[in-house]
């Protein structure tokens, strides 16, 4: 197999499974699951950690050589607040990477495209590696690419819903058109969903709830790791085309044979 490394900005990733830190039953379980997943990029909500406290339980459990922290701005409602949060995270966590999440709707946590684009533009100018969480909107993805985001993170289904890839038609267009890595974020509830996203050509997936809320988070983390690897391998190996139409025995053109 050829080496298949994902590159985002200045970092390379062997694992195409990104994970989150919410909803686990304890920091220990979170740590075990993340390590088992072999994920190298782990998002953490700035609002959940005490950045002034060196012995913050969550941060202590994420202190691992293979884990890159990806602070997210969950909780902010506007571009202005997001930029502020990102700057706070950069200073406190010593990383210029940020997962830009602006969902003013606290119920379905759906991203605000207008504020996200505004914040992304500003954050890129401020030197951030911006990973924006957005609707599966192909035009918005191109607009974000234009302002300099290093990837796009369209959703598969509402966050935490575990419903799978419900935005298929739009994800296919995004993957076809994108010049930056496409990471399917939100909605992935089962390893089969993750494998499917990878088969489509997504560059990576981000999974949190499905692992954290599972009865056996470590096993589920491994299952996702394997599914992401399988999906990627299948994508690289080129899937056999799906036959969408029956092949008739040339009733329309067989007369050509008679003409000879």
């Amino acid at each position: 197999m050829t080496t298949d490394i994902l590159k985002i900005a200045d970092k390379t990733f062997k694992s195409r499974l990104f994970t989150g830190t919410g909803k686990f039953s304890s920091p220990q379980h979170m740590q075990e699951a993340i390590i088992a997943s072999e994920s190298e990029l782990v998002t953490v909500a700035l609002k959940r950690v005490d950045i002034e406290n060196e012995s913050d339980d969550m941060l202590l459990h994420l202190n691992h050589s293979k884990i890159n922290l990806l602070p997210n701005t969950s909780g902010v409602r506007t571009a202005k607040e997001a930029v502020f949060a990102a700057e706070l995270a950069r200073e406190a966590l010593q990383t210029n990477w940020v997962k830009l999440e602006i969902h003013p709707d606290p119920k379905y946590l759906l991203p605000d495209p207008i504020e996200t684009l505004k914040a992304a533009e500003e954050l890129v100018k401020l030197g951030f590696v911006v990973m924006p969480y957005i609707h599966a909107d192909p035009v918005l993805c191109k607009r974000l690419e234009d302002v300099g985001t290093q990837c796009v993170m369209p959703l598969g289904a509402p966050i935490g819903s575990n419903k799978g890839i419900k935005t298929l038609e739009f994800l296919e267009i995004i993957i076809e058109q994108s010049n930056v890595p496409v990471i399917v974020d939100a909605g992935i509830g089962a390893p089969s969903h993750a494998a499917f996203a990878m088969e489509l050509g997504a560059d990576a997936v981000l999974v949190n709830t499905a692992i954290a809320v599972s009865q056996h988070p470590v096993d589920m983390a491994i299952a996702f790791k394997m599914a992401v690897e399988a999906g990627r391998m299948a994508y690289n190996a080129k899937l056999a085309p799906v036959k969408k139409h029956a092949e008739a025995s040339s009733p329309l053109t067989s007369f050509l044979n008679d003409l000879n």
Partner: protein
Amino acid sequence: MSFKNTFETYDWATLENEIYKVTPKDVENVLRKDKIELEDFKKLISPAAKPYLEAMAQRSNAITKKRFGNTIQMYIPMYLSNECQNICTYCGFSMDNGIRRKTLSDIEILKEVQHIKNLGYDHILLVTGEANKTVGVSYLKHAIELIRSQFSNISIEVQPLDQKDYETLIESGLYAVLVYQETYHKATYKTHHPKGRKSNFDYRLDTPDRLGKAGIHKIGLGALFGLEDWRVDSFYTALHLKYLQKTYWKTKYSISFPRLRPHQGGLAPKVEMTDADLVQLICAYRLLDEDVELSLSTRESELFRNHAIHLGITSISAESKTNPGGYSVEPQSLEQFEISDERSTEEIRQMIQSQGYDVVWKDWSKDYITTH
């Protein structure tokens, strides 16, 4: 337009009749549905739903885990004052109750805060009676600013205020406001609130609208169980919730479940709500709304709270004192009501963790509050 317009299209007696005539078949039909609506909620809180409690609890547990994960948010109340110009028949702070009145000074507030911080809390709920001259907007603003640097998340449960006052407090760092209607039965409301500004039912009813317009992050709703039929009051609360969610879509909501507790000069509940009733109601809310926060205070017993965290509850308090200065300044002063679960914060933490949940102390950043 405000909730009052919606509220007035409903009639208490009609609702009561509808809820009490629900059949087991109706309940079964609701439980087959994926999406539970307000009409379905009516069925789930009916007496006919009682035999389906386990099924409701299982479903509530699963939905709650999906949305909130294996976590329970912790918060603690801090009473700033027991001064009050209202007469409320059920409340220890009622103006006609001959207790010594106290409002905390800056030094006392900071002393209480020190005690609370040592317990580990990062989300605090400030509580007062209604004494607009001494504990008005400027006092509250000052108190929030005084403690802001020490808490990630500050809520208040105080008298209803005007929209501009809420805007002022939000700018000072206020995250959430809890304002319970007590009862949606207008006549009963009048009986229990005969005197003071609180006797204005309509002003209280439209308080969440004013909060929504002010751009608050979270609004807490509830009815005080014991004043009237809890089923009808809960239907109105759910109606209020759904109205607010549609109107102020950027705001988050929480529901609390206060049952009347004994206190000096106390009132016996008119309508009793049993433990099983409360379980039914908690589960019904969760089935109606996957995302609403459900909060349970130390009014409830140890046993009940130990189990409630599996039923849909997402946030709880511990070791609460319901008197101003109760933590360290003046532990012996008269409380608003007696709490039931008297375990320490540490004991509650252990109880939660032993049941496979992580305790969340911090889920907000004080830096996220800016003007909108």
